[in-house]
């Protein structure tokens, strides 16, 4: 715990120094100095406005992650484990995957309106693809001997799913989740550009538009914080749920 805190502190220090260097180099007002931004950030931490933004962004990101994971992880399991299903669905995935999802905005607005639903759906869609590809690839790499093991006990497809596919794919699902934390937060930046005046993405955009770089960096630091929290949460969940990963001769 203490070690973890020390490490974080050291990393933040180094990042701060790098930032300071960049700020000195950039000269003009583009990049605020880290100490200025940090003081402002700490001060912002004491305001309700910041936490309101943080909460709406967190709500959108977390809901979207849950949604994306809930849909794409099972789908990835099925695609990874059945060549037939994969043969049918894989071309769908990689023909539609590269489409910049932001162009689907009209369709989403039409379907889900201007509120949080369309924002969450957009994040979930982008995340979902990543969870899908990671899970599918992970499942395809499972050694066939484990299927034989369960089948030899008379296990049905359902048992193969529950006893082999899910536990073996779980670490890959967590990789996807870790990847997703960053993506979700980054996508926030785009979906919070319509029909909202709350959220860290909105704050960044708004401050950027008025060249209020200190406020912009409060938003960026807030995103960083949100991402780190989500990332650590994913780590924690994985440690709890994949304890077997660390078994073996030491």
């Amino acid at each position: 715990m203490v070690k973890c805190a020390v490490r974080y502190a050291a990393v933040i220090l180094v990042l701060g120094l790098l930032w300071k260097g960049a700020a000195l180099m950039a000269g003009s007002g583009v990049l605020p100095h880290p100490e200025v931004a940090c003081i402002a950030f700490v001060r912002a931490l004491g305001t309700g406005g910041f936490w309101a933004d943080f909460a709406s962004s967190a709500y959108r990101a977390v809901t979207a992650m849950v949604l994306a994971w809930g849909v794409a992880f099972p789908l990835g399991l099925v695609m990874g484990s059945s060549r037939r299903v994969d043969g049918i669905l894989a071309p769908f995935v990689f023909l539609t995957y590269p489409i910049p999802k932001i162009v689907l905005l009209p369709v989403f607005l039409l379907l889900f309106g201007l509120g949080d639903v369309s924002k969450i759906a957009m994040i979930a869609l982008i995340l979902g693809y990543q969870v899908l590809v990671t899970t599918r690839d992970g499942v395809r790499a499972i050694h066939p001997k484990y299927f034989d093991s369960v089948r030899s006990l008379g296990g049905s497809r359902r048992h193969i799913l529950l006893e082999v596919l899910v536990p073996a794919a779980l670490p890959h699902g967590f990789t996807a989740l870790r990847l997703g934390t960053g993506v979700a937060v980054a996508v926030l930046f785009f979906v919070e550009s319509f029909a909202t005046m709350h959220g860290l993405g909105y704050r960044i955009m708004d401050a950027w538009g008025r060249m209020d770089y200190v406020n912009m960096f409060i938003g960026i630091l807030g995103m960083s914080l949100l991402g780190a929290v989500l990332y650590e949460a994913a780590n924690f969940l994985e440690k709890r749920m994949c304890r077997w990963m660390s078994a073996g001769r030491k």
Partner: protein
Amino acid sequence: ANENVTIRFGVLPVLDTLPMQVAVQEGFFADAGLNVELVSFASALERDTAMQAGLLDGYFGDLIATCLLVRQGVPMRIALTSYRTTPGSPMFGIAVGSGKAEATLADLRGASIGYSRSTIMEYLLDRISEKYGLAPDYFRRIEVKKIPIRLQMLMDGQLDAAILPEPLMSLVEYKGGAVVLTAEDMDMPLTVLCLHERFFADEGRIYRRFADAYAKAVEHLAETPEKYRGLMARTCRIPPPLAPKYPIYRYPAPALPTAAELDDVQDWMIAHDMLKQRMPHARLLPGNVR
């Protein structure tokens, strides 16, 4: 019978929308039985998309985007001019960074200028060039769609000049740059407010209520401008250092763009492949009103 009408109105966080904000804050719309809900968008793209998806009943935008939307079959009409170029109160112009702050127009031949194609920015750049007798290739045009990035590139000296809206032009000046040319005396409507067709029905009853409430806001704003400084700073993206002293503009009383002005814009759009032919004015303007 002042039945309550809900109008979801898409706006951008720009200066032009200040009267709308005032009208909402002061309850002028509510008094007129209009439940106007301002939906803010960070950029025109999302606003247009929402408009096309039928999620908005009203809309703030420039004439170019308006014409495009109408051409796309969005059932809306121009309700009134939101901002008109006014001498002394520029809204768009060409700014140069601190490195070129001393440069005159003549020095800027061949200088790079950041703009955004197929938008009001290009239209104004063309019109300004025409007015000052500059050839279309007088500047080396570099497309940078996102305004914050354009601004930053200007400040970093990666662009010699950029076409920018207010209050960013003032910000450039504040940071040591300069404004070279503005569109302030071109005498043209830049931005308009539009409403869904249905509000013009019944001889424009609702439309008139809307316009009256808006007119009240404009008056009010002209009388006690300082009262709305805070509102302006919050909703119109005024950079913090400018906020205390930024002039509060005078906005035109409700009026419509003239047919000639609409034709001018449409001709430009035709020349730039954005329109095949002029649209009849009846499609753009309210017809049987008053």
